[in-house]
């Protein structure tokens, strides 16, 4: 069902945990749908994501998607992180079953949501976030 990469990230997820003094925190999904992803970002003055952690309530592919997404953005700039699409997540995982694609969407949205939080706290504006509604992402990611 899952690729080896997915199973690897599920078994040994990278960057699990919390960041107490995070610069941005994003949470998307809801228990109704069975998936919640929470991401914590440390972002330096150059807008580089120096650290990232996640916690996920969800199925194997939700955990793997979170894990790979955090890897993809760690050390990247905010701008670069905003360009990580769910497609990229799926690609890096070596594919996901079609019924699980929404997990990758969730990962993309978790990133956006954390940056949205950072942006609002730091009075920043990113065109990539135009139209992004973190409340909606929390309500229904499908």
């Amino acid at each position, binding site marked *: 069902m*899952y690729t080896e990469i997915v*199973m690897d990230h*599920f*078994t040994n*997820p990278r960057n*699990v945990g*919390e960041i107490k003094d995070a610069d941005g925190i994003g*949470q998307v999904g809801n*228990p*109704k*749908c*069975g*998936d*919640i*992803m*929470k991401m914590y970002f440390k972002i330096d003055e150059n807008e580089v994501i120096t650290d990232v952690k996640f*916690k*996920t*309530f*969800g*199925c*194997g592919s*939700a*955990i793997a998607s979170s894990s790979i997404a955090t890897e993809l953005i760690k050390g990247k700039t905010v701008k670069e992180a905003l360009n990580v699409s769910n497609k990229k997540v799926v690609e890096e995982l070596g594919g996901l079953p079609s*019924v*699980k694609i929404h997990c990758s969407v969730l990962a993309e949205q978790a990133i956006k949501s954390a940056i949205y939080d950072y942006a609002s706290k730091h009075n920043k504006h990113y065109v990539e976030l135009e139209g992004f509604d973190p409340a909606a992402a929390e309500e229904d990611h*499908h």
Partner: protein
Amino acid sequence: MMNKRIYMDYSATTPMREEVLEEMMEFMKTEYGNPSSIHSFGRESKNAVDTARDRIAKTMNAKGKEIYFTGGGSESDNWAIKGYAFANKNKGNHIITTKIEHHAVLHTVEYLVKNHGFTATYLDVNAEGLIDLEDLKKAITDETILITIMYANNEIGTIQPIKEIGAIAKENKVAFHTDGVQIYGSGKIDVDELNIDMMSMSAHKLHGPKGIGALYIRPGIRLDNLIHGGAQERKKRAGTENVPGIVGFGKAAELAYEDLEERIEEKIRLRDKMIDGILDNIPYTLLNGHRTHRLPNNTNISFRFIEGESLLLSLDMVGIAASSGSACTSGSLDPSHVLLSLGLTHEVAHGSLRLTIGAYTTEEEVDYVLEQLPPIVERLRQMSPLYEEIQGGN
């Protein structure tokens, strides 16, 4: 690496017993004739089919001619419900069922409602999964033609008060079908005593082959065919008989009822060890289904803050095969309709685990599960933002 393989999913399907496969072999190798044929190749198949029919009938105090073979439990459910509804629509258009039926019943009733002019009442269940008999009585109207209520639930194991339901049906002259797929082979059944008019069965749930089922039909109950065609099954179910399947089903039924009492006792012992072992050792857990009106082989527990599929995957990695009511395992978005009907929140329903034991389950296997489960649960909880909230709240 792990190479244990511990099967805790007997309610999904079971391995065939050796004696079952053995009896089937003859009909897969040499006696391949069509039972409807007149020549000697066919004659021997015909005898074998009749023997199987009698064996099954005997286990439930029925007669051979009241047993009709089908392609499985789902077909039996569909046939009983659609067949009865279509054949009796002149008498009324109302069907009563429950909210916790297997999809083979639920989707069939929904289809009749949506596309064929029937109406339905879906009875609620309480927190243990039991219907209220008063609700049932109140639901019956002049238009009611059929009550279809499952004997035992496949997810939570709850056993309904079938005898009382049968009596209510009889008193109100409404036909009573029960989905017996989970109970047949694991419980004592007397169709007369229970007033059952139709009962669905599926061989692969009792160490028989896949792709073969049966419907018990009380004489006098009229239903349209679901599968029209040849004159097989006394003209009620067309199709060249699956002789090896039928033979295997007959043997499996015979074996299941040979030492039923003992096996029930042993299963209950192991099941209770499993249930208590989990509830006592892992916090934030709750048993789903009724504590005693319960299938002897069923453990169903919700682990809060984690999601079922990731639990299953983790168990699979240590060699344990189980199942879950999580939406993620079914490809749908909502978790099990059964768990939600008990009143569980979505979150709790998502975190359910079903461990179902069977004829080959050993005490060591139960012990192994009890040993493996706590660290797996803890690890997933450590990853869960929901657990974090709770912990933070402490």
